[in-house]
């Protein structure tokens, strides 16, 4: 066990730290995810940030060099991420591409696809989204009804997707569609890369309860996709999607990262506001703060253990789902305590000091809880796939087709 840097890591850390200080003004900073409305200006700023970091060699360090990756190690990427966090650099705007689409393409895409897409994805030249959920389906992916039909000029796609994160800013997406309506629910699906600027694609941003427009409806009206843009085999999309979902779970909380407002932001907020509280309130707030911090530390150090596993070359397994359960709880408690520390101003969306972060974070938490699988889905995954508990209903022949989905999403 060793948390110390090797000399080489220490050199990298110093170099990154220096770079981030020198390029401070070219980088977007922030107090945590989901705080700002992802409008065009903010997204452009975040894309520039990602490009600056890519150009410095700090994005996709572990990705293959031949496609624009750094050919480095997980340990190096971890050092870089720590320094990005310390310098309060905003998280990468292309997180769906980095966390889900990219790994899926690397694993299942053709050489040509990797050549064309990966480098631009890492640099946020292209943003990517994931077109899985549908209005009728919710967590039940295998129920999806968007159809892709084979024609001479490629696949014709007809259907509708929803909850597509940042689709309005994306150039490409990975799309799961039904290619064989005769097959059992989770069979007969195929994964494609879709050009979001193709004719027939209509993106309609959804307004969320926090006022933001992060999620979208995507209407697919006879969209044509060349067969060369298939990811994996025909009717093998379920297996491809599992890669995406495993990576999603790792990306969303699995690594011990924070999902809401950063805990150091909460700590400095508390340092500023605790003295204004009565003695009674201070005692209660300090206990609440301790609780948030301990949960947050538990998630963070568990993420480190998972990272160590990954550094040893293993793939993220279903146990990475566990991290998100805690991360969501921490995000909720952080927003709530941040708000309560505002005292009388906590009934308004902006305090007299102009602090809007906590009310905004509170209104964003329910969305954080949904992305990457609800608590129930994650608990089912851990319970059934890690702990070997029986599935939710008996494995009758009729239920069997549904079971793999229930277990994995």
């Amino acid at each position: 066990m060793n948390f110390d840097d090797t000399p080489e890591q220490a050199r990298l850390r110093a170099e990154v730290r220096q770079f981030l200080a020198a390029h401070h003004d070219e980088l977007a900073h922030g107090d945590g995810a989901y705080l700002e409305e992802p409008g065009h200006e903010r997204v452009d700023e975040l894309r520039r940030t990602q490009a600056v970091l890519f150009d410095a060699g700090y994005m996709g360090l572990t990705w293959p060099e031949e496609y624009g990756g750094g050919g480095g190690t997980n340990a190096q990427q971890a050092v870089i991420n720590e320094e990005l966090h310390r310098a309060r650099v905003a998280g990468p705007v292309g997180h769906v591409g980095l966390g889900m689409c990219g790994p899926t393409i690397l694993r299942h895409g053709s050489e040509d696809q990797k050549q064309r897409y990966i480098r631009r994805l890492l640099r946020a030249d292209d943003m990517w989204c994931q077109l899985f959920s549908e209005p009728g389906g919710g967590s039940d992916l295998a129920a999806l009804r968007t159809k892709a039909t084979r024609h001479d000029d490629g696949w014709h796609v007809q259907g509708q997707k929803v909850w597509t994160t940042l689709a309005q800013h994306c150039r490409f997406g990975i799309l799961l569609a039904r290619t064989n309506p005769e097959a059992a629910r989770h069979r007969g699906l195929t994964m494609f890369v879709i050009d979001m600027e193709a004719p027939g694609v209509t993106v309609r941003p959804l307004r969320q309860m926090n006022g933001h427009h992060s999620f979208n409806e995507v209407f697919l009206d006879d969209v044509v996709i060349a067969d060369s843009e298939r990811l994996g085999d025909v009717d093998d999309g379920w297996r491809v999607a599992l890669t995406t979902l495993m990576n999603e779970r790792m990306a969303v909380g699995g690594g011990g990262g924070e999902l809401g407002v950063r805990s150091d932001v909460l700590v400095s907020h508390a340092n500023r506001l605790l003295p204004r509280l009565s003695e009674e309130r201070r005692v209660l707030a300090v206990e609440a703060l301790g609780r948030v911090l301990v949960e947050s530390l538990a998630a963070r150090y568990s993420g480190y253990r998972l990272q160590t596993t990954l550094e040893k070359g293993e793939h993220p397994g279903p146990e990475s789902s566990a991290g998100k359960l805690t991360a969501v709880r921490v995000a909720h408690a952080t927003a709530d305590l941040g708000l309560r520390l505002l005292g009388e101003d906590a009934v308004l969306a902006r305090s007299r000091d102009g602090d809007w972060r906590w009310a905004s974070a509170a209104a964003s938490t329910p969305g954080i809880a949904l992305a990457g699988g609800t608590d129930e889905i994650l608990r089912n995954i851990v319970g059934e796939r890690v702990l070997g508990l029986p599935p939710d209903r008996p494995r009758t022949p009729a239920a069997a087709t549904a079971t793999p989905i229930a277990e994995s999403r």
Partner: protein
Amino acid sequence: MDFDIDDEQRNFAQHARDFFSEQAGPEHARTLLAAPGEAAPGRRVLAELGFSSLTIPEDFGGVGAELLNMALVAEQAGRQLAGPSLTTAARVAVLLADDADRLAAFSEGRLSLAVLDGPPSGSRPSMDVVGATHFLALDGDDLVIGEGRVTLGEPIDATRGLGYVELTSSEVVAQDAQARWARARQVACVILAAEGLGAADRAVEIGLEYAKTRETFGRQIGAYQAVKHRLVDDWVAVNQLRSLVWWAAWAADHAPDQLPIAASAAKAYCAGTFETACETLIHVLGGIGFTWEHDAHLYWRRAKVDRLLLGDESEHLAAVATCTLHAADAAATGELQPI
């Protein structure tokens, strides 16, 4: 013991239910977030119908009903996120109890009042200051009334009409008003809890409807214990909240020594019950519950604000504990019977 409302009260509540479902509703609350103003149905209409003067004696132009009747109306108002809050009216009725002229003016809707929390020189965020022309406040031991400069806050829930007020004029209405002020606040807590009760009840109802129709993995989601048990817990809590609200409202008129504990118990229990019910609702709804277009967040907004108004859960839990400890101590030393 007869711990139930009677048929007349049931009819009265049904009448209020019909009225608020026509004249208010979450769609109004949503509109208000974009275009600030007074919440629906507005104080003029509430005065016209006599809802805001329910607890004002008939001699002063009011209806002369008990607080319980107002709590029944408030529950229905809460279901539809109506505004301004009946807490203001209930509080005014106590504060101006011996000011016949102003009470009559308020009853008739000629005087638009809000009650300020915190010092009159610069109040804390106070309810229903939107649309109010005059403000009641506690200045030392004096109850004062005056006009004021209003600074509206950026709302989480726009139906609460929250703003900061600085009195620009001030006239003493009553001296030595601490006890009256405290009672008015307790009464207001009961009515606020009643509004929360109605809103929480509606939130559970929407969640139950959805859980019975929405299917995933081949089953209605309400069949899954994770969903079912959360909804059950919320439903149980809402029903228990109703018991506390009714008790507290009854106590205001019939057992004033029980009011401090009952009002704080209702307010404290409401804070958590209402908030949890809304969080469950959004969770059960999934993505759709996170959208602006769905009503869920409007109940959620109300819950997030109401839990802190007129004292948060911690304040009222401490009040219940402290009052109970004192009563027991006094009883043990022979001073008093325990409540």
